[in-house]
């Protein structure tokens, strides 16, 4: 009985998560030039999508930035989690505060601070050394900075009550601490690391303010939020956005279903 209630509850939650997706799917077939308006059934949004190179390049930009920044943030966040949880450091309080602040700070405040830092401190210093920081590294730096803490929190939660007996056993058997980390601890942390990475990925995909403020003029570098928010400002979000979203969802669903089927087969065999 309890199991049925639980199952229903979970199902309802997934439906809640996908309800807007259904709306996007439906409206991706709207004939209107406004994403919010239903104008009758039409394939126009998809036709527009195919004719629109900007969306594609914005999408590619978003994915590249998200991938690289997630990788870096996961690396730095995991190492911070390990260090803060396990090592005794001086100024632990201050360190904890510093590491939690990126979660606390409102996005716009961080964006303005990073903008000023880049424009007044970092870029002038680098150009004195003859280095120019392009938009891609700038954006990645920004994204990594706000993602690290999220990864850290998730990994740390798992780390907190982790059973150390396996690690101690490995040490007793002669493994170096580095080997223990690589072969025992990290695999044990894998679900948490994956979870943190997924969160960081979505944070990066959706970021607007930090990305917008940190890009300099003229590279034409765009991420999807940059493309969309500009349109939301004075123009209107075009219907091909619903088409893009629908296609992305469908593609992802296909991919994960495939991965699932493959994994299940390997499990059985």
């Amino acid at each position: 009985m309890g199991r049925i209630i639980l199952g229903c509850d979970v199902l309802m939650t997934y439906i809640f998560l996908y309800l807007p997706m259904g709306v996007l799917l439906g409206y991706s077939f709207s004939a209107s030039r406004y994403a919010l308006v239903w104008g009758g059934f039409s394939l126009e949004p998809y036709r527009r999508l195919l004719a629109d190179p900007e969306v594609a390049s914005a999408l590619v930009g978003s994915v590249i930035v998200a991938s690289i920044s997630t990788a870096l943030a996961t690396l730095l966040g995991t190492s911070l989690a390990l260090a803060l949880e396990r090592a005794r450091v001086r100024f632990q309080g201050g360190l904890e505060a510093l590491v939690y602040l990126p979660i606390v700070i409102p996005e716009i405040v961080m964006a303005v601070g990073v903008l000023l830092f880049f424009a007044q401190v970092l870029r002038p210093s680098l150009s004195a050394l003859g280095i120019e920081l392009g938009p891609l590294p700038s954006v990645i730096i920004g994204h990594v900075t706000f993602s690290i803490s999220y990864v850290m929190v998730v990994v740390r939660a798992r780390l907190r009550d982790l059973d150390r007996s396996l690690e101690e056993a490995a040490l007793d058997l002669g493994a170096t601490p580095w080997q223990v980390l690589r072969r025992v601890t990290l695999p044990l942390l894998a679900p948490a690391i994956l979870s943190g990475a997924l969160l960081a990925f979505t944070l990066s995909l959706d970021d607007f303010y930090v990305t917008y403020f940190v890009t300099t003029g003229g590279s034409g570098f765009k991420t999807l939020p940059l493309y969309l928010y500009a349109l939301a400002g004075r123009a209107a979000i075009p219907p091909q956005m619903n088409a893009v979203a629908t296609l992305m969802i469908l593609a992802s669903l296909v991919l994960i279903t495939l991965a699932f089927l493959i994994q299940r087969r390997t499990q059985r065999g």
Partner: protein
Amino acid sequence: MSLIRALALVTFVVLGLVGVGACGKRAPHELHLFIWANYIDPEVYQLFEREFGVRVIEENFDSNETLRTKLQAGATGYDVIVPSDYTVEILIRQGLLTKLDLSKIPNSQNISGRFRGLYYDPHNQYALPYLWGTTGLGYNAQKLESPPTSWAEVFELSRLARYKNRVSMLDDPRETIGAALKYLGYSVNSTDPRALQEALRVLLAQKPYLARYDSETYDDFLLTGDLVIAHGWSGEFAKARQENRDIRYVIPQEGGVIWADNLAIPKSSQRVELAHQFIDFLLRPQINAKIVNYVRYPTTNEAARPYILPEIVNDPAIYPPEEMVERLEWIRDVGDALALYEAVWDELKNR
């Protein structure tokens, strides 16, 4: 030891990123334009490139404030920007614009007399007007008994009550407080504390009947039928009208606001010569008209008129009648009285 290693790791990563980024080619003949989205005909770029051999790279901003923030904080890389009137004034005061050499922009002669020497740049030393518009009330004629003619339609409670939760005002302190001031018979640039207090009262009374304060999606909601009257900018309603002929626009009889977007060159631009050429190009009559025909905003360029589609020139929603334009006000700097506006807006939004 560990600190050094960490510093080395971080430096390595950052340099690696720099390497990735520095891989971008830097074409010698490029112009970087920073403009509103969908505010220019992309074919214009091809025409410019064909004639001058220069590639135009367009980037967009979503509001004057984000444009100003970027420039104020020191972002570089832009050659031509398109700020609105009040932002030009702010940028001039902060020394963020390059002086224009009008001898290099002969087509600046084409700008109509009404749009020359405007309040924010009396001698057009820093900016030249591009497209302009007005602020008023857009509405769905099908859903209203009679078209609104006065600000009273959205401020007088007996009339407003008919459209409860179907009206929106701009999420902009100067515009919305300005609308209330106009309704009360004052100027949108009033510095009289009593006038502002009255405006606050009127706005607070209006708030419960409003669906939202919205500067971005009011046109969408007007089209979906969730709004019947929306406070907004003329260009947006003109575009919405293409989707649904029932969408109309009116400047209330008490008067409204007029605004203009301008072409300017930021101080940090390193292609000032090219920027001048591009601005001159955009002010050519045929090019300017081409843009207007595409974006459907009225132009400040008189010489372009003959080349604009008649359906646009004759549309009162896009080109309001002369006597109407006389009654419009520019939103201007009010100096220290700005604190009064800030106080009114804070009260309105946070109570």
